[in-house]
């Protein structure tokens, strides 16, 4: 156990502590207790951080299930540190914000903070784990805690719906990812990410390598809300706003990005990996930004914007992974620039999106609505909120002097270089991305101007808006300052985070180019990408001004049925209906049907085995000759059995069964089994008597006597079972593999002092069976007794 282990376990300890303390500390807001955890962890992680040098990778391990190579091993390098700082840093700000956002008296804060701590611990565990299985465990834990947090207001139907949807989709991805991890383990023989990376090219030739890659990618895409799995994120907006800010913009949805970044050294050299990520990322980027325009709810708008921005980061990581490909080796340093841009935009996005969500929460809190059709003209009432929202939105739109500008420029550079250095059809990608950026610009303008400027309608708002309390504004203010600081001083993260992270992601490249350094600056001269940005601003402003004219017609053009949200709902309903109808079709409740399944199965399996494996054999050489009296008894038995089938009265059937029983006891006599014959006679008498008893008490109403109705399927099954078992018996008789052990028991007089072998078997050699059989008999007797005696007990009370 190292301090790093303890750091991860700390939030889990507080999951227990917070509800305990909650009862005794009702006077203060529980959030203050919870706040200590992320702050302490942030302080702990910041000590590894230094502006001028990279963190020295740390590996600590603690055995968990050593026998199958599962160790609770942690690995702290620049990438993990970046995520750890984001999780704890934004976590602190979110907890601070939630203290002012959530009411102490009306909310169940103990649950809220316990879930939040659970999530924080799980998220830290995910990004710090070196062992794939431990990573997976924490990964699922983030899904579970996210599920709990989305459904925090479980009284609302939409919350439950959103939580269920998020659960289904992320769990599906999680399982797929687990499959990928297991395949990786099978290929490489280890769960450790370090060791798999070290194994290098020896894995890539394995035929299961590409399937494993796609299984893992599916996990990353579902978690990071990539197309077409993005549909859970807008519905997850039913969560309290601090949760949306924390989970669904800054941390959890980046877990997929983390996974892609972390596994790039393993899979990056595959073209399938790079292009899948690029294409999915670009589709997600465009689709998300386009759909964001349609939204009226600010949180839904931000959800689509998050989807879009995650697509952007993903596509950058995809472009960057081309650096590892041997086919593009000469351009590898060019592609590395995309990795820098991706990681840098990841930081920026967490900063401005966290801030924007908090601002939307404030708007909601102060005005009572998040609908942009109701908001407007509150710039004078909430000037600080306006400023902070503007900083966030401008940063997202990629305008100077905010950090989003730098990463947006780097994004364009990367895509242009992608076009220049790979195939010519890739030229379409920067164009699409550029159009998506125009959409992004427009919705950013919508966030600012639709909600703060324009005409003020006091009657549309539930409350009279006024500036939010300082405590609520503190967190977004800090994030906004960070967004500005990163523009003027990008060097804050360059040497400490960006360079070492990128070097860790493409170690093969930097083995060739050891003295590479990146330059992230706000100004880099007039170039194509700057022209693109200026064009975005001009066209975006133009389109924003006329949005009311084209918005309606454009979105009406799209067919409503081709909507993934409807498709999801429809497929759920269809699945339930199909499952119900399939189950209803065979679970009929009729014993006859179940019996025919069982017997049919028996026939098919046994016959297939008999003839499929060539086990069937008819060997009559060892058979004894048949005597005439045996034949007579056999014929009598058959006649009685057939008589049962065709008799028209139940009484006659009972008689037929009795005849069969007595002829069987005759067989025991002639096959020299006197004990059996005696017992069979008496037992047959008793059971016939009991049958007669049942017959006598049949209800009079339905006692219309009729013969057994003929049904072809039943006849086939009955004949089939008879035939199957006969063939099986004949074949089994043909194979005598071992000598029977009966020889031993002939010494029963010396061994057990008994001349009756059967009896000595029953009471001496195999007395254990007999003991249990009399227990069975006893249970049956007591069972009958209780059935009869306790029948009315319930009614009398």
């Amino acid at each position, binding site marked *: 156990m190292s301090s790093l282990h303890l750091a991860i376990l700390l939030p889990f300890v507080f999951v227990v502590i917070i509800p305990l303390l909650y009862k005794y500390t009702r006077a203060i807001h529980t959030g203050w207790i919870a706040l200590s955890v992320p702050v302490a962890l942030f302080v702990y992680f910041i000590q590894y951080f230094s502006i001028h040098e990279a963190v020295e990778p740390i590996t600590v391990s603690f055995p968990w299930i050593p026998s199958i190579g599962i160790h609770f091993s942690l690995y702290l390098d620049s990438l993990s540190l970046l995520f750890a700082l984001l999780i704890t840093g934004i976590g602190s700000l979110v907890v601070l914000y939630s203290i002012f956002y959530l009411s102490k008296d009306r909310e169940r804060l103990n649950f809220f903070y316990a879930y939040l701590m659970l999530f924080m611990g799980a998220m830290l565990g995910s990004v710090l784990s070196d062992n794939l299985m431990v990573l997976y465990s924490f990964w699922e834990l983030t899904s579970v805690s996210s599920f709990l947090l989305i459904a925090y207001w479980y009284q609302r139907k939409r919350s439950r719906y959103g939580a269920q949807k998020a659960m289904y989709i992320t769990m599906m991805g999680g399982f797929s990812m687990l499959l990928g991890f297991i395949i990786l383990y099978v290929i490489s023989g280890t769960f450790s990410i370090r060791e798999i990376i070290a194994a290098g090219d020896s894995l890539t030739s394995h035929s299961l390598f590409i399937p494993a890659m796609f299984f893992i990618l599916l996990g990353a895409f579902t978690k990071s809300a990539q197309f077409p799995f993005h549909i859970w994120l807008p519905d997850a907006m039913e969560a309290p706003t601090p949760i949306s800010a924390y989970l669904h913009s800054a941390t959890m949805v980046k877990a997929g990005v983390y996974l892609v970044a972390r596994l790039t050294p393993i899979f990056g050299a595959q073209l399938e990996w790079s292009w899948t990520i690029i294409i999915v990322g670009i589709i997600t980027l465009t689709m998300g930004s386009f759909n964001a325009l349609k939204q009226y709810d600010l949180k839904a708008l931000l959800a689509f914007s998050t989807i879009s921005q995650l697509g952007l980061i993903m596509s950058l990581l995809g472009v960057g992974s081309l650096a590892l490909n041997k086919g593009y080796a000469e351009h590898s340093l060019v592609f590395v620039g995309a990795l820098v841009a991706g990681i840098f935009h990841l930081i920026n996005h967490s900063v401005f999106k966290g801030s924007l969500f908090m601002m939307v929460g404030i708007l909601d809190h102060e005005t009572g609505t998040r609908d942009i059709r109701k908001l407007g003209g509150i710039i004078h009432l909430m000037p600080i909120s306006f400023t902070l929202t503007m900083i966030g939105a401008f940063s997202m739109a990629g305008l100077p002097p905010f950090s989003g500008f730098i990463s947006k420029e780097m994004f364009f550079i990367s895509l242009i270089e992608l076009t220049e250095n790979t195939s010519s059809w890739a030229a379409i990608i920067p164009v699409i991305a550029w159009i998506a950026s125009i959409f992004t610009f427009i919705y950013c303008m919508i966030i600012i101007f639709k909600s703060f400027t324009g005409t003020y309608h006091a009657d549309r708002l539930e409350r009279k808006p006024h500036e939010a309390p300082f405590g609520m504004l503190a967190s977004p203010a800090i994030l906004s300052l960070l967004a500005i600081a990163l523009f003027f001083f990008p060097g804050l993260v360059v040497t400490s985070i960006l360079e070492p992270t990128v070097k860790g992601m493409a170690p093969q490249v930097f083995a060739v180019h050891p003295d590479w350094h990146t330059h992230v600056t706000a100004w880099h001269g007039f170039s194509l990408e700057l022209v693109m940005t200026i064009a975005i601003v001009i066209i975006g402003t133009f389109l924003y001004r006329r949005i009311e004219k084209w918005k309606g017609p454009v979105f009406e053009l799209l067919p409503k049925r081709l909507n993934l949200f409807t498709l999801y709902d429809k497929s759920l309903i269809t699945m339930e209906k199909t499952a119900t109808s399939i189950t209803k079709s065979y679970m009929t409740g009729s014993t006859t049907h179940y019996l025919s399944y069982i017997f049919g199965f028996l026939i098919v399996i046994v016959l297939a085995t008999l003839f499929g494996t060539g086990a069937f054999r008819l060997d009559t050489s060892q058979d004894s000759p048949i005597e005439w009296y045996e034949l007579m008894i056999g014929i009598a038995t058959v006649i009685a059995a057939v008589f049962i089938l065709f008799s028209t009265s139940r009484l006659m059937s009972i008689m037929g069964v009795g005849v069969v029983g007595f002829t069987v006891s005759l067989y025991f006599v002639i096959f020299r089994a006197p004990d059996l014959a005696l017992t069979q006679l008496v037992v047959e008498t008793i059971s016939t008597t009991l049958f007669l008893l049942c017959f006598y*008490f049949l209800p009079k109403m339905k006692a219309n006597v009729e013969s057994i109705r003929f049904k072809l399927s039943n006849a086939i099954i009955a004949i089939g079972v008879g035939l199957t078992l006969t063939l099986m018996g004949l074949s089994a008789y043909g194979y005598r593999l071992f000598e029977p052990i009966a020889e031993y028991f002939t010494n029963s007089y010396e061994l057990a002092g008994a001349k*009756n072998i059967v009896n*000595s078997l029953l*009471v001496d050699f195999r007395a254990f069976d007999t003991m249990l059989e009399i*227990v069975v008999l006893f249970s*049956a007797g007591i069972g009958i007794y209780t059935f009869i005696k306790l029948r009315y007990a319930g009614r009398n009370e």
Partner: protein
Amino acid sequence: MKFTDVYLQTATKILVFLIMTFSIYVLFAGHHNPGGGFIGGLITASALVLLYVAFDLQTVREVIPVDFKKLAAAGVLISVLTGVGSLVLGVPFLSQTFRYFDLPFLGKTELATALIFDLGVYMCVVGTTLTIITSISEDDI
């Protein structure tokens, strides 16, 4: 009005002793000849059923004041205890043994622990059979 079948009752009084004697014989002969606890128990039960048929439930219950459920339970218990007894003596569960003794009147006689086990079987069979039959016949629908 109570129906009384004098022939049946008289015959039963004699036959029950014969059948009981035969069942005890079958129980003890089981070790060397066909028979044993199970069939012996069934024959005893049939003797008692004959009593029930000839007389009525109430009368027989007064003559034989045995709770057959307890008899069956005792039988199971005896069988299990013979097994436990062998454990106490340090041999595997349900080990049986036998020895020859010179008993007065009977001469050289073989006594086997298996007989105790068979006695448990016998009691269980008698008890269970009669529990079933009496509880069904007492039932009024």
